[in-house]
Structure formats: structure tokens, C-alpha cells
């Protein structure tokens, strides 16, 4: 069978430096990951808020093979919308502030991102899953994350095929194990 190489085709430097994908916030107001080599400029939202959104995005749709930059790209639209729409800005800032404070009360740590286990963070999100903030975040991710063509190969999906003549010569019936 023709199967895909699911490794991301990028420089291996990010993996060699070892450190996990913990995002940093710079004084100039960007969120960046030195180990993975990406950064997001933040225009309207607080950089801390953006960092929390990135973590939440991963906790909502956790795919361990996907680097943070894909989640960052998926939630960046909230910053763009917030820049144009103050109600959206408030929805996002209030949503993050609310969950940070609930987390502090319940877990005695400094907000959502400081909570170490995904299961604990997901439990915090369950508390607000019917609220507009969560709905906006999750709803936007369905297209914002999964419609990024760069991630498709990591799931084994090849995308457009007509330009390559379809799959008639490229494995539409190459399954050999049943």
C-alpha cells in the first residue's frame, strides 16, 4: 500500500533543542516559541490571552503530533476579529479572565495555563462549554485548525487529487490486508 510519511517536513532544529512547546510572551507583545521557531504578533488581545487561547485550542482538539504553531494560527483570527469588533474582544478577554479566576480558586495556581495536566484543564473547559466564549473558540477551530492544508499530511490525508490525475494510478485500491 502507498502510505504517507506523516512527519512534518520542516527543519529538525526545533526537535533537537528538546524543550517542550511552552510559549513565551515578549515585552513587545508577541507570543512566541523559541524552540519551535514561530511567533504571533498580537494586536488587540493581551499577549497572555493569546497564549491561553493557544493552550485552550490544544486542549479542545489535542493532537500530539501537531506543533503549537498550527493552534496559534487557528486562534489568531480572534485577535483579528477583536481588532475590529470590541464586543468580540470583550467576549474573549472576559472568557479567559473568568476561567483563569475559576482555576485559581479551584486549583490554587496562577490561572489556566499554570495547570499542569490536560485532564484538569479540560475539566475547567467543561464548566463553560455551553457559554458563548467557548462556543466561539471551539466553533472557529473546526475550520481554523482542520482546514490548514499543512496539517493534512500528518493525518494521512492527501487533499486535492484531480491535478495529479485522481487516484486511479495512485492507490485507490491498493489495500492488501483483508
Amino acid at each position, binding site marked *: 500500500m502507498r502510505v504517507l510519511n506523516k512527519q512534518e517536513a520542516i527543519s529538525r532544529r526545533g526537535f533537537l533543542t528538546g524543550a517542550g512547546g511552552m510559549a513565551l510572551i515578549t515585552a513587545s507583545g508577541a507570543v512566541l516559541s523559541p524552540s519551535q521557531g514561530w511567533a504571533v504578533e498580537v494586536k488587540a488581545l493581551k499577549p497572555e490571552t493569546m497564549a491561553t487561547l493557544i493552550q485552550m485550542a490544544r486542549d479542545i*482538539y489535542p493532537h500530539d503530533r501537531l506543533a503549537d504553531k498550527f493552534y496559534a494560527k487557528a486562534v489568531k483570527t480572534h485577535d483579528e476579529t477583536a481588532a475590529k469588533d470590541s464586543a468580540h474582544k470583550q467576549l474573549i478577554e472576559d472568557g479567559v479572565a473568568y476561567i483563569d479566576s475559576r482555576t485559581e480558586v479551584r486549583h490554587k495556581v496562577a490561572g489556566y495555563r499554570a495547570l499542569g495536566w490536560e485532564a484538569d484543564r479540560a475539566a475547567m473547559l467543561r464548566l463553560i462549554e455551553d457559554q458563548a466564549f467557548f462556543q466561539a473558540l471551539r466553533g472557529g477551530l473546526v475550520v481554523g485548525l*482542520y*482546514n490548514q492544508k499543512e496539517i493534512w499530511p500528518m493525518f494521512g*490525508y492527501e487533499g486535492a487529487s484531480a491535478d495529479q490525475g*485522481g487516484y486511479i494510478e495512485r492507490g*485507490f485500491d491498493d*489495500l492488501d490486508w483483508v
Partner: protein
Amino acid sequence: MAAPYELSDDSVVVVIGSGAGGGTLGNELAQKGIDTVILEAGGRHEFTDFINDEWGSFGQLAWLDNRTTSGDWRVSRDFPNLPAWIVKAVGGSTTHWAGASLRFQEHELRVLSEYGAVEGANLLDWPITLADLEPYYDKAEKKMRVTRTHDLPGLPGNNNYKIMEAGAKKLGYKEVHTGRMAINSVDDDRPMCQQSGFCFQGCKFSAKWSTLYTEIPEGEETGKLEVRANAHVLKIEHDDSGKVSGVVYADKDGNQHRQAARAVCVAGNSIESPRMLLNSASSQFPDGLANSSGQVGKNYMRHMTGSVYAVFDKPVNFYRGTTMAGIISDEARNNPKRGFVGGYEMETLALGLPFMAAFLNPGAWGREFTAALDMYDHMAGMWIVGEDMPQESNAISLHDELKDAHGMPIPNVHFTDHPNDVAMRNHAYGQGSAVYDAVGATATYPTPPYPSTHNLGTNRMSAKPEDGVVNKFGQTHDIANLFISDGSQFTTGAAENPTLTIVTLAIRQADYIAEQMSQGAI
């Protein structure tokens, strides 16, 4: 050679919609030398313009005008403004469709007699029999080049099919093959299937039948058919004698025009067709056109549907190849011992990653959900499609407040499953999972129905005028020169995908319209 007709030309037959029903009817009428104007709300995108990208194609072709929903169906919660996945473009939903083309079973045209009364269901026998349809089914299958009919070979099975077939055989199912598909299995003036895997996005090879590049250009070539794209019909008008006399439509700039007509054939699919009739209410017809029975918009059916996706320890790559060329028909017969009347088909189905994320379990999130998606390339999948019960309360109605860009009330789509639908779906989930378990699935997912691709029944056919909207030729009981030419004519839904029958009825209707015209009856 497309014939342009004057707006004032009242000798033309106006067909509203260019999909399976309207596109076919328009061509058939033109072939008989009848001057025909198809008014189509959407634009014209030739097959070379199609996009091999799920959301990109959806944006290009889907009907995105606002609609609302109500009722207990989960679509109303997950996709409150997208009750149906259908198309607004020349070619209608035959651009997006998968091509599965099955005849009704004989008993499915007389289900009230066969099943008896079912509580809560508005069952009725069709006023026609399978024998009435058979000669027209032959014509439709030849026109659409349906595989495994009229000596055409079947399509080859893809990876997804191989899994389904192996599982089905282990369970002892007998009627298992790569389907009767309106997709070329041999080259002719259109190429054979290139296994691109994007049937739902419009076939870029034109191997799949669509009115866009078959019926419509054939009709245009006669010089007797004009297809006017970006012409969104708002209202059908009538004269003092109660005959329809023309239609009012908006062009792409929103300017309104009136096309005169000798007869009007409505084929806007089962949400828009009743909406147009209801929006055409007048002092003479205060409940909308052709609605003396009160059945316009009622008995909305969408088939009992669902999907079963299964994960295996080895790769499948089910997105490669024809989307729906695989079927198990053993459960399609009526066998009330299973706890429900009617039957269902199991058909292979694959979605790309973006749609899988949106439709596998809408609203779900967290590691349980992503664990499934992480196995995307190890998945196989099937769609289950069966007969649902017509219920009078499942209905298209006009929204009390919301209006579209042209000031017309938008449609609300109300739907709640009948207990028979629920029992059938649960049975199908069980059997579908068993098919995959038989070949070693490590997980199976009973996936809820998508926004409706099969929309039926909202202008139903009946022997008696008080029971339905149209007679056995799709002519409205109330207005002799007003016809319904799409799936909204269906009295009941049967287990089979509807389009072959929609095309069959359109060919038959064209004969009848020509006859009525030559007799001067319309």
C-alpha cells in the same frame, strides 16, 4: 445556440431550478421542440472550475441563504441555519451528488397498503406503480449511464469498498457490490471515473452525471432552451382565471423582472419549492398556490440517515476513489420483525479530513474526539440511508419575521424523527458496526445525520386532491398549468437514494406536458 427568450414571451414553459428535476425536464421539453426557459438562482460554474477542496467547494456551490430550523433533530442544534446540504448553481445538487442510482422496490410505491397505518405517520400509496415507472427508469438509467444497468460494467472497488465487502460477506450478506452509479465506468463522450475521491465537490473529470454538462448543453443545442443563471424566483403569478401566467425573479444585482409563461414547472428542491408556492399567496389563493389540500410544505422527509465509521489497526486511505461506489442491499427489504417497517441501504462513504472534523460528532471535543481523528487514514466508512416516515408536522413554513435579501420570508425547516426512524437507525448502526467488527475494527463510531442531502415530500403526489398537492404526473391538482418537477413530489421516500426516481419522473412528466400542450389543455 442557447435561445434567448423575451420576458414578455408567454408561449414559453418556465422551469424553476436546473438540478436533477429541472435540468432534466428542461432538456426533455427542448428535445420535443418546446420553447423552455430555465430560471436558476445560482451561477454557472463549469466542471473545470470545480474545486478539489471541501470547504472551498462548499463556498462555491452550496445554498447558503439563511434558513432556520426547529424540532428535535440534532441538525437543528448543531447546524441551526444549515438544515440541508444542497446546491445553488446551474446543475443544482447534481454537482455535489455522489451518483448512487437505485430503482424503488415495487412495494415502496404502495406503503400504506404494504405496512398498514403507522401511528403518527401520514402514509399514503403513490398513485403510480413500479410498472408505470419502469420504461422511464430505463430511459433515465441510459441517459445517466448507470453502472450495472443496460450492460454497463460496475466501477472497480476502492479500499473503502474492499473493507465493506469483506465484512458484509463474513456476516452472510448477499447483495453486495460496487453499486449502481451514474458515474462512467467506461469512456464515452465523458471520461470514465478517475477515482479522484471528490465526488461531493463536483467531478472535475465530468465522469459523474450532472445536468450541468449533460442535459443542459444538450437542451441548449436544440435552440429551444435558455438557461438563465442568477435568476432567483420570488413569486409565481396567476391570472383571474386562476392559471399561472408568469414568474417574478431577482437577477444578480437584485433587480426584479417578470418572465411570462404558458406553464410553470417548479424544481427548486424540497425546501425552496414549497417556499415559492407559499410565498405566492394571493387573494384568490390565500394559503399559497396549489394548496387547497393544506399539504404544501408538509410531510417533509429527509431519509433515515446516519454513518458508521470504523477504525482498523492498518491503513485504509478511504478518501481515495469514488466516494459512494459500494453497497449492501440486504437490509433494504421490508421485514417488520426487525422492529420497524421499511428498509435501508448501506453505502460506502468517505469524507476528507476537514469534513470529518465537522461531521464525525458535531460539537464533540477533547481527547476522545481527537483519538478518532488521529486514526483518519485507518478509517473505513459507510452511510446508512432508509425510508423515513412522512409526518404532517415535519414541515417547511415561512418565517414570521426573517426575510431574505429580496424581502421574501425565509423558510423554517421543522423535523423530528418518527419512532420508526429511530428504531431503523439503531438497527442500522448495529449492523454497520457488525460489518466492520467482522473484519477486525478496533473502534466504531455511530455518526449522526448530516444536514439533509435528500429533501423530499413537501408537495406530495396523491390520487385524491384532498390528500396531496400533485397528481400522478406532477401536475398540481388545483392549477392545470403548474407542475412540480423535483423530489418534493414524492409521496413516500423509499429506502433508495432519490435522484434516479426524480429524473425518471421528470422524463415522464415531459411526455405528459407535451401531450397536454398539443391537446390545448394547457
